[in-house]
């Protein structure tokens, strides 16, 4: 299955936000996270159904967050409120780095995202 472009609803360890996938070109992913304030860049491996991306936000000049996730489809209704649709695509995985209140002993968090397709 190709990675769906558009606005995904993402839940990062309890935070709900929007993950905008603007393009997937030759496996290169680009988009926005955190209310459109942060750029993401990464890769989509169609064979393994895996997305990997980094997040650049704020005043930082290099990415401080790495997200990795795997996509699957499931029947609705979805977990996340506001995701309409006939088919739900889910990404689930982990985020590592300066995410939320990261500490030396806890800097990897679970996340999932969903988008509905009619």
């Amino acid at each position, binding site marked *: 299955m190709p990675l769906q472009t558009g606005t995904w609803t993402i839940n990062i360890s*309890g*935070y709900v936000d929007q993950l905008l996938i603007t393009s997937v070109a030759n496996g290169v992913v680009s988009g926005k996270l955190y209310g459109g304030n942060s750029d993401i860049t990464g890769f989509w491996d169609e064979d393994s159904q895996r997305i990997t991306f980094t997040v650049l936000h704020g005043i930082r000049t290099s990415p401080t967050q790495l997200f990795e996730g795997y996509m699957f489809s499931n029947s609705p209704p979805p977990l996340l409120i506001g995701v309409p649709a006939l088919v739900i695509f889910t990404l*689930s995985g982990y985020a590592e780095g300066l995410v939320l209140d990261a500490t030396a002993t806890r800097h990897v968090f*679970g996340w999932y995202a969903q988008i509905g397709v009619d």
Partner: protein
Amino acid sequence: MQMRSTVLTPEGRKRRREWLAEHSTTTATPVCAGGFGASGKLPIAKRPDETGAVTTGAVGAIKEHLFVRRHLKAMPLPTGHWTLMNDGIRGDLWIQSVDISGNLAGTWSLLGGDSYTILGYWDEVAQKLLFFAHNSVYTGFLFQDGSRMPGLTGSIVFTLVGYFINSSASPGISASPDRHSFGWLAQIGQD
């Protein structure tokens, strides 16, 4: 379908009561409309609070910070029946026990099929779960969630989400050299 509720040991009930007493004020699904601060760690508050109002500025930042502290504080792994979504396939994850060292025991099954024993480890500091089940190694991370699967009961929902690596054929999974890692998540509701 009515989901079964959690069964806790007396020690588990005590720890759960303590944790819930400390965190019972959280009721709403947080929505971070404003993104995260320049530090990359403390979000800029611009999200609806429990009343639906959007708070900004210093007060909002403090509320947001309290949210982070409340949700990210280390908590014990809830034992009992977790509803599993395994690469899109529904299943059951029973976490029967977690001892004081973090060793866990339980069972795993998909679509009401055969049940397999699981063994694994719970790292409470990292809020990280690792377990082995039928040719697969699962890694997941725990958090309190504002979203829930259909049919899940309980006033508080916890989510485990992560990935699993499959080494050979398992029910509903077709691993290959190109694709042997998959996504999963599970939820449990508690009162």
